[in-house]
């Protein structure tokens, strides 16, 4: 198998373990290419990719842009804030316009959960979900899984089994948390979610994860600590009383970092709130792989474009 037999990439839930591992192995190949001096390959020459971001994003959009360019695709950006959308055009009309221009891939981010799923049923182009509401951020889930497996030296089936991964923070409102949990559980890891009960509802137990409200007790157990960005406006909804108290209970402080396992890895999808969910000294530690995640993100997104395009055998590809 060297392609994804599907039109769209919408969420982790619908991917098989084989598909996840295929994406990771392909990502490794692309990472090897672009970390050498030659960065582009002609895989998507003649294909067009449109990024359609209904929500502001810097790093995810740049990562998709770079991935498409390194595969030699024609790239257009549909900027929602300067477009007909502000004049009240519906999503479906906007995308039919893009389709009329024969766009092959639509990379969409949207504040409304399930918007890419709605779209994918009504158009022919491939839809790649770059984050929808609280629902899914599948490329982040895949790059996080890839980053963990790469650190542990194997992209083979079973390489995540036995690992205990903690995801700390606002789980309830996080599409990253959902996609990470789905990916990590499919790959066999043990997952514990940690945060206040207002942000870590019991319904998440349906994933077969543990829930903890006590980070101090949890932290020495963890092989991987994945911190999520805390949205400051959540405090207004009384989901936690203050950032100070949140920091006291759930931040990865210097002191907590010292009680971690020696081989722990610390992750964060970015952008980081220094001093809220993570302290400065931890940011600067070699155990923290936040920048490596960013590199891997480009590789994983290249792999997804490549595999959705039908996946020509990699060894026959000529580098430019």
């Amino acid at each position, binding site marked *: 198998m060297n392609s994804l037999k599907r039109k769209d990439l919408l969420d982790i*839930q619908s991917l098989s373990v084989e598909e996840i591992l295929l994406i990771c192995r392909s990502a490794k190949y692309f990472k090897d290419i672009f970390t050498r001096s030659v960065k582009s390959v002609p895989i998507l020459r003649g294909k067009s990719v449109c990024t359609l971001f209904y929500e502001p994003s810097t790093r995810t959009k740049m990562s998709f842009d770079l991935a498409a360019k390194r595969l030699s695709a024609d790239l257009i950006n549909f900027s929602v804030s300067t477009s007909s959308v502000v004049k009240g055009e*519906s*999503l*479906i009309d906007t995308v039919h316009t893009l389709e009329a221009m024969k766009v092959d891939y639509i990379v969409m981010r*949207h*504040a*409304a*959960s*399930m*918007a890419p*799923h*709605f779209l994918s049923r*009504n158009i022919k182009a491939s839809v790649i979900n770059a984050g*929808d*509401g*609280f*629902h*899914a951020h599948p490329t982040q889930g895949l790059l996080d899984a890839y980053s963990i497996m790469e650190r542990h030296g194997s992209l083979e089936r079973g390489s995540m089994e036995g690992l205990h991964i903690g995801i700390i923070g606002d789980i309830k409102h996080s*599409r990253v948390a*959902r996609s990470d949990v789905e990916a990590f559980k499919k790959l066999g890891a043990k997952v514990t979610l940690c945060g206040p009960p207002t942000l870590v*509802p019991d*319904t*998440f137990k*349906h994933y077969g994860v543990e829930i903890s409200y006590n980070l101090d007790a949890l932290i020495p157990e963890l092989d991987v600590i994945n911190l999520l960005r805390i949205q400051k406006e959540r405090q207004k909804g009384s989901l936690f009383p203050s950032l100070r108290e949140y920091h006291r209970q759930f931040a990865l402080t210097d002191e907590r970092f010292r009680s971690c396992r020696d081989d722990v890895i610390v992750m964060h999808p970015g952008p980081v709130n220094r001093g809220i969910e993570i302290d400065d000294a931890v940011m600067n530690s070699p155990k923290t792989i936040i920048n490596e995640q960013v590199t891997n993100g480009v590789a994983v997104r290249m792999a997804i474009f490549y595999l959705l395009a039908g996946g020509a055998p990699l060894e026959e590809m000529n580098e430019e």
Partner: protein
Amino acid sequence: MKIVIKNGRIIDPASRTDDALDILIEDDTIADISCGISVQDGYGVIDAGGCLVLPGLIDMHVHFREPGREDVETIYSGSKVAAKGGFTSVCTMPNTDPVIDNQALVRFIKLEAEKGPINVFPAATITKGMKGEEISEMGELIGAGAVGFTDDGLPVMSSILMRRALEYSRMFDVPIMTHSEDLELTDDGIMNEGKNSMLLGLKGIPREAEEVMIARDVILTRMTGGRLHVAHVSSGGSVEIIRRAKSDGIRVTCETAPHYFSLTDDAVAEYLSMAKMKPPLRTEDDRKSIIEGLKRGIIDVIASDHAPHSPNEKMQELEYAPFGIVGLETTVPLIITVLVRENGFSYFEAFEKVTVNPARVLKLDRGELKIGSIADLTIINPEKKVQINESFMLSKCKNTPFIGKELFGSVEYTICNGNVVYSNK
């Protein structure tokens, strides 16, 4: 004009009649119900062989969108859809634009309804402008033809106002019909809060948003001696609160809608905005509790909550699409398929919920088959399948998750005030 309905199986839940009898209609009245009525020259004959002959069905919860949104449904178009669905009487909700909070608008609905095939009984708002601030002129509105009061679409959030509405309405003995939802607990939710809302990353509406308001209103009804009718009950907890209230002798009735006994929130991922309504579809446990509540008579009424929305409005991101689905044409097939066939309801248990029970809640002189009563009748073939597709749907809007389904129970004739207003021939 005289019509004889022959060879049918008469089902009258009010009198517990289940018998092979003929019915003679003279003008707008049932003139005879007996064995072997002879057909004379000039009589019309309806052969109801293999069919149930029921009192004309009553849907006490529909949105006909007029005045204000005539593009999605009108009183006339909605009445035609009702007739096709087997309904001879409907109660229209007052959350139109403008809202039905004065006598002139109640009379407007009655006048528009005269052009249509069926009886329309308007409900008026509990509060002026549906603003939840002052109670409407209930006496004046009843004088113009209103049969009950509701701010449906919105709850009455103020407890003191709800107390006053229940107290004041006592002198008219009319139902205060509630859309039970604590909007603060709903907190912009769009589907049932639980496993599925978590998996889909959609904001949840907890069942408690419905249950706390029903509990409040039951307690206020006990306090005031008013008459409460709880609209569209969706959760098992709500059924339990109402069961207890009834056993305590509190004057409460309630209704559910066919989608709450037919679907669960599993449907949201599949049908997206077509499965979005308020209250939301809940879990399989809730669905079973609703069926049990209907079976035990805790839930008195089945009403469609027919809520047309244009395709453009529904073809949006789930979060932005409006709440509500159409239901007048799928109610009978869902009653037959889900309640009678899958859950062993007798025809009395199933059809009292759309005949005598809603008639009693609204104090309508309808919903029974007896000599001398108005000739409202519905003839249904319970063994005949119907394909629910866009061409089956007469409604101006096709926003229903049941598109594509094959169900049992075909409405063959609808007779209203002695006139055949729908025939599937």
